[in-house]
């Protein structure tokens, strides 16, 4: 079953070196910039970076672990046949189903990527997986609850649901229609196929569990590197870009939405808590921009974009960022115009 793919391994080596170079550059750059621009001593600047970075990591790592565990359990206990039997036939139906899959797998944006990747390897259709990836970080009971607690049953809560479903279904259907799974997804690095029969038939529950936990550990490393690079990048951006210069742009039907989406991308806050964060902007920013912040942030941010690159080919990653950005922007502006602010 194993085939050697020199081209793929070369490109993954390139990504590895890029990743390491990026990491080194980040640390040096952050340190040097702070030291030069504000006269602070290097140790202090590094300590601010460390606090910001470790804060994001400590908050996000448990969610990634939960996602990795889910991924491991799917690998051990769910068979491809079972998934394929339940699939809707057409792409729109699959995409719609994908948006609701989050209710079965309650994961935030750090956890959704490993789960989606695992489901792809089990034969999940592309349109459904993409819709799942975009919608699940919000469309799950935990995030419903936090949004409800923060905003109550009003424009923001229902706006967030409608826009998330609309964008996820559209992007899922579009990508599913224009790309094939084997062209969109990266070469299968998962050790799934050749062991499938060992684990799905005849293995004891204990063996399967052990296998699931091993897979979960591997998954944490595989996806964790993207989470860590993304957290480092987000911490760096926060250290360099003054938050108040963004806050000054809170009014304006279009500009406010653009900036809230950029803020969501940079901050990379987990979807389970982003509602509480959004509260901070309610007084200064337009309602449309708050809703766009909440619907765009869980779909795409620095962390998840990097994690996407571990699943999809580069071209698909590009569309996975661009399409949700444009659609959420449109939705936010329409809401602002409708509400007259």
């Amino acid at each position, binding site marked *: 079953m194993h085939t050697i793919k020199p081209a793929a391994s070369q490109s993954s080596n390139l990504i590895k070196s890029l990743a390491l170079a990026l990491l080194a550059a980040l640390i040096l750059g952050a340190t040097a910039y702070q030291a030069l621009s504000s006269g602070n001593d290097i140790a202090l600047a590094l300590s601010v970076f460390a606090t910001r970075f470790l804060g994001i990591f400590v908050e996000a790592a*448990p969610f990634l672990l939960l996602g990795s565990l889910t991924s491991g359990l799917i690998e051990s206990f769910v068979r491809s046949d079972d998934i394929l039997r339940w699939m809707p036939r057409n792409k729109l139906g699959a995409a719609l189903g994908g948006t609701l899959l989050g209710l079965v797998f309650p994961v935030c944006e750090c956890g959704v990527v490993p789960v989606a990747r695992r489901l792809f390897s089990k034969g999940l259709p592309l349109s459904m997986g993409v819709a799942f990836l975009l919608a699940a970080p919000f469309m799950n009971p935990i995030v419903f609850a936090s949004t409800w607690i923060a905003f109550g049953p009003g424009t923001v809560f229902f706006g967030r649901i409608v826009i998330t479903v609309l964008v996820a279904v559209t992007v899922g259907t579009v990508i599913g229609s224009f790309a094939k799974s084997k062209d969109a997804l990266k070469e299968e690095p998962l050790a799934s196929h050749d062991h499938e029969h060992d684990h799905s038939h005849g293995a004891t529950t204990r063996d399967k569990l052990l296998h699931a936990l091993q897979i979960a550990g591997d998954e944490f490393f595989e996806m964790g*590197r993207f989470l860590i690079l993304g957290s480092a990048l987000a911490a760096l951006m926060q250290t360099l870009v003054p938050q108040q210069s963004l806050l000054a742009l809170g009014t304006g039907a279009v500009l406010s939405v653009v900036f809230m989406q950029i803020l969501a991308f940079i901050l990379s806050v987990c979807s389970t808590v982003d509602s*509480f964060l959004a509260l901070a902007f309610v007084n200064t920013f337009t309602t449309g921009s708050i809703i766009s912040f909440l619907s765009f942030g869980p779909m795409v941010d620095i962390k998840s974009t990097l994690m996407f690159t571990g699943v999809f080919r580069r071209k698909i990653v590009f569309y996975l960022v661009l399409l949700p950005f444009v659609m959420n922007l449109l939705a936010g502006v329409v809401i602002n115009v409708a509400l007259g602010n």
Partner: protein
Amino acid sequence: MTHHHHHHAASSAQRIDRVAWAKALILLGMGIYLAYLIASGNLTNYINLRFAWLAYVGTAIFVLLATVSLYVCLKPGAGHQHYQISWDMLVIVAFPLMLAILIPSRSLGIEAINGGISLSPVGVESPAAFRRSPLDRNILDWLREFNRGAPASFNGQQVDVTGFVYREPLFAEDGFMVARFTMSCCVADAYPIGMPVSSEAAADFGAGDWVRVRGELQAGKFGAEFMPVIIASTLDAVDEPAQPYLYP
């Protein structure tokens, strides 16, 4: 040919062994790190304690995964060895651990202020804050309170707040701001807020020093703003509080 093949298989098995050990030790290290953050109280430097349970969940899963990995290392053949893990993953995932070991844990302080400080509150107005008596109000409570009335309407009210000293070049010699970071979820959303203070003893305190400010409010001009200013009667140097951030 056969010999060559053997040699290759042996070195690849060694590599797998090293990777397996590294994986197990990093997972264990992560679990120990989270447990240490909880035990030492340093967790408050990073996340809102409302989400402290996340660190408990994280510790438990890390220890579970580390135990399984160690078990597989110690009992060869106990599990299937799937190695999708490469060295770059190990290095990157070990990065937070290295940072945590090399750099002493600190909360965000004055050197993290990037582009000024806010005179307005963050987050929704919580009704509980208004029921607090004036002397129990923190900086965030006061800024929320200021949204509800004209600056002069607070004249004469007693204030007792703690924060760190923040100055800008244009501040008068006897003026500074007593500042805190607010945090809704984790340091990703940390945001500096502050109240203006006027005191003869202002010059005794350096930027970033933690200070307890007691005094009364008097509406006055602070920069371009007309707002309540604390006319301090006493300034006391204090240690950084156990919970350095204010939670909206």
